[in-house]
């Protein structure tokens, strides 16, 4: 009996040790970051990525409009089926934002979901998509973010309150091992060698993080690549997030031009106007490069059409 207890204890200890090792936050290789040394930031590219990436939708003050959407003070309470996430500030303020960060801190947050103090971020911060961005683009975005206005007043950041087991932050390390990678969702042979489609894929799957809401999640709560962009329940409440594949359930009736104009204006071909979180996404995309809106539209028409997911 005593022997059994010892064996059991050893097993539990080994299990805990394995969990601890496998769930540890990992960082980008120093050599990858060093390759960016001396990079001359392209601020126009940084700004375009800021709008495509939709940073303001979550990180601006919750009711900010117009120029105030550039003040990234945080404070939104992001609702989800797992609980509420309090969104932090990302302004250049060292106290309430990320002014004290290095580029390596920023790149590890965006591509590895790891904070400067070595903790996992929750994937509500869509690094599962941002991981597919290039380090060069992140360097440009980082340079742009550092030039954003500092908030005059500190925002009140809501408490993050999640249900068990989602409140076990360390467990995210295991989730990342399975689901966090830089490989494209739609393979090269589907898209051919059209550079516009490649650009569209890069923007949709990476910075644009469209799949975070428009793709159903699998059993591990990661974006399901086999039902890519086929629509999903609205994570923030009522209704569904639409299917945006080229299927009768999705955008089959839309031309590429309709999609590009929809991203710019918020109007559907039926002249309804996109509501919910998409209204905010459109405000961002209105500021993005017209050829990027067109590339996104081309990609959405090129990927496999799927019925509602």
């Amino acid at each position: 009996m005593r022997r059994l207890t010892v064996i059991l204890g050893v097993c539990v200890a080994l299990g805990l040790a394995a969990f601890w090792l496998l769930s540890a936050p990992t960082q980008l290789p120093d050599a990858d970051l060093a390759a960016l040394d001396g990079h001359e930031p392209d601020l126009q590219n940084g700004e375009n990525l800021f709008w495509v990436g939709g940073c303001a939708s979550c990180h601006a003050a919750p009711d900010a409009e117009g120029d105030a959407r550039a003040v990234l003070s945080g404070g939104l309470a992001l609702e989800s089926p797992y609980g509420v996430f309090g969104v932090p500030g990302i302004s250049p303020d060292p106290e309430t934002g990320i002014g004290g960060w290095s580029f390596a801190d920023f790149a590890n947050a965006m591509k590895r979901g790891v904070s400067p103090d070595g903790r996992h971020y929750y994937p509500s911060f869509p690094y599962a998509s941002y991981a597919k961005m290039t380090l060069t683009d992140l360097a440009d975005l980082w340079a742009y973010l550092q030039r954003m206005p500092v908030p005059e007043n500190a925002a009140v950041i809501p408490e993050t309150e999640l249900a068990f087991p989602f409140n076990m932050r360390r467990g995210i390390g295991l989730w990342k091992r399975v689901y966090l990678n830089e490989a494209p969702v739609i393979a090269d042979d589907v898209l051919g060698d059209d550079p516009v489609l490649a650009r569209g894929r890069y923007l949709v799957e990476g910075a644009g993080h469209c799949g975070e809401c428009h793709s159903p999640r699998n059993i591990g709560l990661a974006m399901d690549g086999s039902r890519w962009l086929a629509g999903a329940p609205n994570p923030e409440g009522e209704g569904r997030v639409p299917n945006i594949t080229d299927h009768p359930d999705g955008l089959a009736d839309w031309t590429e031009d309709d999609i590009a104009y929809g991203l710019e204006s918020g109007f559907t071909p039926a002249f309804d106007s996109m509501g919910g979180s998409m209204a905010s996404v459109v405000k961002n995309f209105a500021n993005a490069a017209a050829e990027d809106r067109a590339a996104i539209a081309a990609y959405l028409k090129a990927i496999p059409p799927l019925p509602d997911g």
Partner: protein
Amino acid sequence: MLLRTLTIAATMLATGATVSIAQDDPIAERQEAMKTMGRSMRVLVPMARGQADYDAEAALAAFVQMNDAAQNYGDLFPEGTETGGDTRAKPEIWTDREGFDTAVADFKEDLAMAVSADIGSLDAFRPVFGAVAQNCGDCHEDYQVPEN
């Protein structure tokens, strides 16, 4: 000017007729009002995008239609119409009435501006259209459930 007056009179008659039919069903009535907005947008958007030739009379008629349909829009969300009839109205309309009323008032203000603005040329029309169209997304963001 005469044409403008006639256009306004004709659309007021037309929308007046719709309103009187649907008076006891606020959900149907507000959905009809939104369809009127959609019909006007069908005229306005292609002109704003440069896909259709600019027609100042048609643009004015569309703005007048929207303006008329917006007049009692805020009254079409009484207590007890939170659900039913495929409504996509979000509960926030009732929990944040003040915000909703402000959004409707902003929309009406921009429409009042549009029906009295000089929109004789496409260049003059575009910013007026932009100001009106901005309201759609602003309001739907907070007060309308996504489609589908």
